[in-house]
């Protein structure tokens, strides 16, 4: 179990996470819901180690590999989509970037384009594939997804869901999304941050 206890985080004196506690399973798919400003993204950032908490503790991560798909795509604009994914992959990764592209419904030619030449939905999928590529063959990785379905049509969102479902059994996927239709197909466990404050 991953235990989050009494987590506190403030920005400019304004508390975003105020003695927040939550227990997450070691694996499976978890969806964090809640109104804007409830600290969902902040919690993901703390879990990813990108920000320190002001107080409280998180136990159970135990050095697991964590991939973070940010709310913004954050793709390197001067290299191709394929290179963006390839750069995040560990050395000797078995999964070919082209296979990942195909699974997400993207053409090999799309992989040769730079982000500026791709649509918003295509960039979103490249950012998602970068996270998947980063985890590589890790059996018990943690995938943090911040609004992964933004800009995706129903078919593309379903492909992304299919890839999430195909991750190794011991993977924990934590996602934040305002789009509940694709999330429902994931049979995720829901945690409302409105109730947990």
């Amino acid at each position, binding site marked *: 179990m991953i235990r989050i206890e009494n987590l506190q985080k403030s920005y400019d004196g304004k508390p975003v996470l105020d003695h927040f506690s939550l227990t997450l399973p070691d694996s499976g798919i978890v969806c964090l819901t809640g109104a804007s400003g409830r600290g969902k993204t902040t919690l993901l950032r703390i879990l990813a180690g*990108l920000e320190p908490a002001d107080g409280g503790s998180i136990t159970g991560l135990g050095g697991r590999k964590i991939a973070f798909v940010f709310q913004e795509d954050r793709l390197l604009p001067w290299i191709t989509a394929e290179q963006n994914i390839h750069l995040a992959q560990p050395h000797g990764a078995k999964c070919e970037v082209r296979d990942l592209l195909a699974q997400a419904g993207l053409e090999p030619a799309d992989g040769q384009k730079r982000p500026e030449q791709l649509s918003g939905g295509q960039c979103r999928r490249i950012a998602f594939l970068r996270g998947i590529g980063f985890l590589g063959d890790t059996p018990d990785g943690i995938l943090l997804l911040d609004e992964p379905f933004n800009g995706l049509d129903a078919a593309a969102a379903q492909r992304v869901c299919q890839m999430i479902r195909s991750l190794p059994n011991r993977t924990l996927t934590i996602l934040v999304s305002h789009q509940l239709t694709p999330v429902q197909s994931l049979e995720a466990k829901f945690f409302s941050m409105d109730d947990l404050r």
Partner: protein
Amino acid sequence: MVALLWLLLWQAAAMAVGQELLLVSPMTMLRRLVQLVRQPVFWQAVFSSCGRIMTGVLLALAIGTLLAALMSRFSFLYAFFRPALQVIKATPVASFIILALVWIKSYALGAFAAFLMVLPMVWANLYEGIAAVDKNLLEMAKAYRFSFGKKLRYLYLPSLMPYFAAACGTGIGIGWKAGIAAEVLGLPKNSIGKALYNAKIYLEMPDLFCWTAVIILLSLLFEKLAAWILRALTSRLAAEKEAQR
């Protein structure tokens, strides 16, 4: 086409003035230039000045870049070096040259002046460039555990390339101006600056125009060369990545 128009205007102005001592015509300048390029001493001056001035510019590019990187990383270095760089930036080049005449040999003066004038500009450009690197991309690189080399090559270098290219372009121009000014005051042997000085002393206006044109051409040539090298480097980095795949 525009250049031709300016040449015609220059020719017309020279004809209107009617005195070569006041305004040399383009044809007179061209004839004198043909004579000059046939003399070995012309090439000695060109190569010596190029060597000195470009040494100063290259050193300024290297040290300015290094300083910008270190000052971005360590705030105490920023606090220490920033006033010095601002003083150098604001000091007239002539003051430095006269001071340097006491400190160093005249043959090194061109390099020294070019270095001093270009250094703060390179530093300022690169420092601004480093501060402007996209914070979201830096955070992404941290999340995906990019090594230092990977960050340098795929994040910092492409982000800083426009700032570095601008520093090179402007720096070469400034370097030539400062370097030649230093040579005119220091009069090192075999230098364009000394040739300019002699043209002034002996009122050789065609020589003055010729050497000025040579300086402008050399400055432009090195600017174009720097731009070409930077473009080639950028494409090579991309091609290497492509080949690795």
